[in-house]
């Protein structure tokens, strides 16, 4: 079976090399048959890597420890679903997983466009095959998961060997979210290859217009959404498993995952400038290039150990390959851009600094500033060591100091952007659109102040969150009011209809709403409390409104781990509220300990209790309790983000409607009010109505 897997992987490499070379020759010689053959080869790679993945999974599920990789990451006692996820628990398997996910994207991109864009697709196919060749090169010759175990006899002759038991899966990865988190993140990382390939292809083929932007919009959103889910799941895993009471530590690998998401966000906004006004063509191409390069940089940081990280389990000497690949990509991108830079000339120019265009420009500037600050802080210890020879640290306080103001400015722009019109916004429109949201934000701030939000940044965050919520609400309300008065439906139905008629715009607003929820959740961390105490049975500790009474300590165990567990009763105002069971597990095979946090989560706060082990001085059990406000808002924001993104990807429902012949009062009213305009699409063939501030 190992030979089967190895063979499938080797064949996949050869086929993708063929796709790459045949694609280039096909383009140069303009032989259609050859480009079709290259495309089919590109699609066939998916099937071959699938066979290799299936083969490796077979080894995991049958507890066949003749493969070094399986022996190092599984054992008999491992539950079935963790045997499945053990595939990406180590270097070799995770690279194979990467290749497989990439091959899915490649297959879909080539298959779905097989009859479209004949001038563009050969270039896309070549770019995708080039990327795939690199990963399959690693899979086959640098980090193969199909290495068999062998032992030498007394004569020095090597014989195949099989271990009776494996080492087992890293206990930190034995958590349901770890079954989902890496695939989500990898789907993000690999997904950005598609817009990269289309951007590169459009540049090389000098493909006319903004078609590549239209083609890749949904692909980019898919990758962006998966990347966001991956980042949030990682944060949730850190919160739920690591037992330190937080969810984000600015670890280099966390930062690396965040970077392409930030540039992806910038791209999703700036493409609108190109679609609407034919502007920022160079910027967009480079945003996609940089996003893809950050994906490669991210995965190389995870694997090289060049910067110290909690993700040390994935370190190896493979980094050189990634940095080499990164260099090649940079050179290719620079060459492609330099050769075809005249193709990227803007059709239009910025008319006013108070316009939708400039808000996108600032949005991009701030997002890029955030990206730069994170990247700079992550890599600076390495740079400093190179330059000065002495090592310094750049820890979480630096990232918080630099990024909090940037993030708040971004939140401000989230509210401002949708209220500005394309081209130019009049002072009247500004006053009309901003007055109520601004008042609402200030009221939110005043209420927050009364409830104890006294720190500067959380208070500003609250004011801005209120402001953004109201701008989003007013956008929905304005559009729905027009629709309701025209169709006579109720407001809720009108909101639904409105949303479905311009899913991109209103899905985008839902994502903005999600960001507000996440920001509020993060602002809550300014009010975290925690207490750590040695507790005997019958003793208690108090945190916030809760008193935690220790009822018992016991040692439940099973064949996978031994455990130390506390039984705690939680009281509020003298009344028993719940029982909590924080636990520490010692895994038998690996000897690693893991914290099982007891977390009672509500929208107001999380009561997060950790069994922190026994005190080395007194041998008494130590309980560490945290009261973390508003954390749930972050996870809820993540769910809303996914829903918003899905909504934005749904095709618009274009109703076959006819505008009333006589100017509708409410329609006219809406226009007169200036707002950001009605969201109603113009009926085909009818004269379009000028809508100040109309936008996506």
């Amino acid at each position, binding site marked *: 079976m190992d030979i089967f897997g190895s063979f499938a992987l080797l064949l996949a490499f050869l086929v993708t090399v063929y796709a790459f070379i045949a694609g280039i020759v096909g383009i140069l010689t303009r032989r259609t048959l050859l480009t079709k053959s290259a495309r089919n080869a590109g699609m066939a790679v998916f099937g071959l890597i699938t066979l290799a993945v299936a083969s490796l999974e077979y080894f995991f599920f049958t507890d066949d420890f003749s493969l070094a990789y399986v022996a190092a990451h599984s054992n008999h006692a491992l539950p079935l679903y963790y045997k499945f996820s053990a595939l990406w628990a180590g270097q070799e398997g995770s690279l194979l997983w990467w290749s497989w996910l990439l091959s899915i994207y490649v297959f879909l991109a080539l298959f779905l466009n097989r009859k479209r864009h004949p001038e563009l697709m050969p270039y896309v196919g070549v770019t995708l095959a080039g990327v795939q060749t690199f990963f399959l090169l690693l899979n086959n010759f640098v980090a193969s998961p199909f290495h068999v175990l062998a032992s030498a006899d007394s004569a020095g002759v090597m014989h195949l060997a099989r271990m009776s038991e494996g080492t087992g899966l890293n206990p930190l990865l034995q958590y349901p979210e770890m079954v989902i988190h890496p695939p989500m993140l990898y789907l993000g990382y690999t997904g950005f290859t598609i817009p990269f390939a289309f951007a590169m292809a459009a540049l090389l083929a000098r493909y006319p217009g903004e078609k590549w932007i239209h083609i890749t919009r949904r692909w980019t959103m898919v990758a962006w959404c998966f990347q966001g889910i991956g980042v949030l799941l990682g944060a949730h895993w850190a919160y739920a498993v690591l037992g330190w009471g937080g969810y984000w530590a600015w670890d280099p690998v966390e930062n690396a995952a965040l970077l392409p998401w930030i540039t992806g966000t910038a791209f999703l906004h700036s493409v609108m400038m190109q679609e609407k006004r034919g502007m920022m063509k160079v910027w967009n191409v480079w945003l996609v290039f940089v996003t893809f390069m950050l994906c490669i940089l991210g995965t190389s940081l995870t694997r090289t150990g060049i910067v110290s990280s909690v993700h040390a389990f994935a370190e190896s000497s493979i980094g050189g390959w990634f940095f080499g690949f990164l260099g090649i990509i940079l050179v290719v991108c620079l060459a492609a851009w330099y050769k075809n830079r005249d193709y990227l000339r803007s059709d239009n120019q910025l008319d006013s600094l108070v316009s939708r265009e400039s808000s996108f420009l600032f949005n991009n500037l701030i997002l890029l500033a955030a990206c730069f600050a994170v990247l700079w802080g992550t890599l600076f210890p390495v740079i400093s060591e190179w330059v000065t020879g002495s090592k310094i640290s750049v820890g*979480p306080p630096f990232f918080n100091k630099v990024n909090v103001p940037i993030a708040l400015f971004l939140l401000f722009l989230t509210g401002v952007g949708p209220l500005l019109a394309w081209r130019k916004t009049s002072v009247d429109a500004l006053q009309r659109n901003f007055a109520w949201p601004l008042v609402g934000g200030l009221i939110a701030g005043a209420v927050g102040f009364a409830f104890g939000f006294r720190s500067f940044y959380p208070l500003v965050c609250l004011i801005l969150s209120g402001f953004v919520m109201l701008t989003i609400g007013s956008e929905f309300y304005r559009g729905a009011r027009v629709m309701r008065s025209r169709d006579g439906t109720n407001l809720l139905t009108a909101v639904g209809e409105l949303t479905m008629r311009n899913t991109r715009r209103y899905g985008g607003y839902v994502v903005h709403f999600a960001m507000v929820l996440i920001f509020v959740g993060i602002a809550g961390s300014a009010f975290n409390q925690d207490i750590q105490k040695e507790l005997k049975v019958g003793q208690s500790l108090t945190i916030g409104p809760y008193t935690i009474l220790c009822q018992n300590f016991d040692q439940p165990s099973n064949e996978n781990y031994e455990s130390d567990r506390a039984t705690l009763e939680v009281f509020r105002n003298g009344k028993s509220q719940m029982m909590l069971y924080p636990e520490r597990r010692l895994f038998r095979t690996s000897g690693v300990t893991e914290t099982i946090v007891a977390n009672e989560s509500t929208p107001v706060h999380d009561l997060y209790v950790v069994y922190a*082990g026994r005190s080395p001085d007194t041998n008494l059990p130590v309980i560490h309790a945290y009261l973390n406000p508003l954390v749930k808002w972050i996870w809820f924001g993540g769910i809303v983000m996914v829903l918003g993104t899905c909504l934005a990807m749904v095709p618009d429902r274009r109703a076959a409607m006819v505008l009333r012949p006589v100017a509708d009062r409410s329609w006219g009213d809406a226009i007169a009010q200036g707002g950001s305009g009605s969201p109603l699409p113009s009926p085909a063939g009818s004269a379009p109505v000028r809508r100040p501030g109309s936008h996506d």
Partner: protein
Amino acid sequence: MTDATTGTKHKNLATRAGAALLFAAMFLVLAPHSRADDSPRAKVLSKKVMCMCGGCNDTAGTCNHTGGAFSGPCDTAKAMQKEVAQRVDRGDSDDLILQSFVQEYGPTVLPDPPKKGFTWLVWIAPVAAPLLALFLIWELVRRWRRRVALGPAGGPTISPELLDRARREADRESDE
């Protein structure tokens, strides 16, 4: 009530207050030293030194590196927290405590890079880079606007049909 009585009462009050102050001072001196987790100052300070375990890239106060005997903060972070608490109890100033860690581990123990020499760059660049970008954007917009302003005077005459078409196009764009 005579002045003498009042004076005696004042004297008694003063004696009592003095005794209370002495008692409070003795209590503060003799009371058992609080542990790092119970002292807000020690807590803040332990977040101003990096955990030197080499695996978490976090501060000693917030170390999340699991696997230590004392899970949550690892053994290294725990020892550093303890040292901070001891020094706080001894009455050392914040600067003195941080300096002692720098002497022991070098500047890498500080999560905030020092604002001097080459490491100034880490602080300046995240501010300077966006400002520079902002300046470039400003310049770009200024040039565009100047070009637009100069355009019609020296440019070709636009026919009413072309202007009308352009307006229709603009309206259509706004509609989308």
